[in-house]
């Protein structure tokens, strides 16, 4: 069942600005992952944060995890036109190793 929910659903920003997306979930997790999807096809893994981690960085990406609030945020700094995509959070509860995906965030970066 889907348990990730991203907020906001759609975001339009100017190149160079930061983009922030949030994700909430309902059950306990082993880790939370963020993926990017271009043009409605294959997903690309961006970053994984474990349940005992609070913040993680990868290049221009910063992910936070608050297990007490069952929420995560993805920040893209200094956005580029190439960052235009849909971004999904997915939770792994460690039980059956399947990921539960949210509905996604459409981000448009205007050059």
């Amino acid at each position, binding site marked *: 069942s*889907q348990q*990730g929910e991203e907020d906001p659903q759609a975001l339009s920003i100017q190149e160079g600005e930061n983009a922030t997306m949030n994700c909430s979930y309902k059950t306990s997790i*082993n*880790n939370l*992952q963020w*993926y990017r999807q271009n043009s*409605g*096809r*294959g*997903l*690309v*893994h961006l970053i*994984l944060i474990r349940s005992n981690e609070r913040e993680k960085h990868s290049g221009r990406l910063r992910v936070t995890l608050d297990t007490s609030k069952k929420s995560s945020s993805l920040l893209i700094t200094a956005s580029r036109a190439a960052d235009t995509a849909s971004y*999904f959070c*997915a939770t*792994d509860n*460690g039980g*059956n*190793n*399947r*990921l*539960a*995906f*949210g*509905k*996604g965030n459409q981000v448009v970066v205007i050059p």
Partner: protein
Amino acid sequence: GAGVSQSPSNKVTEKGKDVELRCDPISGHTALYWYRQSLGQGLEFLIYFQGNSAPDKSGLPSDRFSAERTGGSVSTLTIQRTQQEDSAVYLCASKPRLEGEQYFGPGTRLTVT
């Protein structure tokens, strides 16, 4: 190295016909997943294979859907007597170990007319 590949990339079929979708995972990856994504929606889990264990079929929406994974590698998702609501992008992913990221293929866009 080669990533996950899927074929065909696009498939148009008439309602009532059967279709087979193929997934070639990354060599050595023990776990393989199938997902379905309807237009503008998130990913819906369909089925999961892990090594030689019995697959987790709990996400298959009806008995018209089935999947096999031969020799622990290539997987085929079969949809019998297709319906228009089966139209979606079908995504395959593989994973090298129990925990961690999944590597996705480019998907098969299925259109049932």
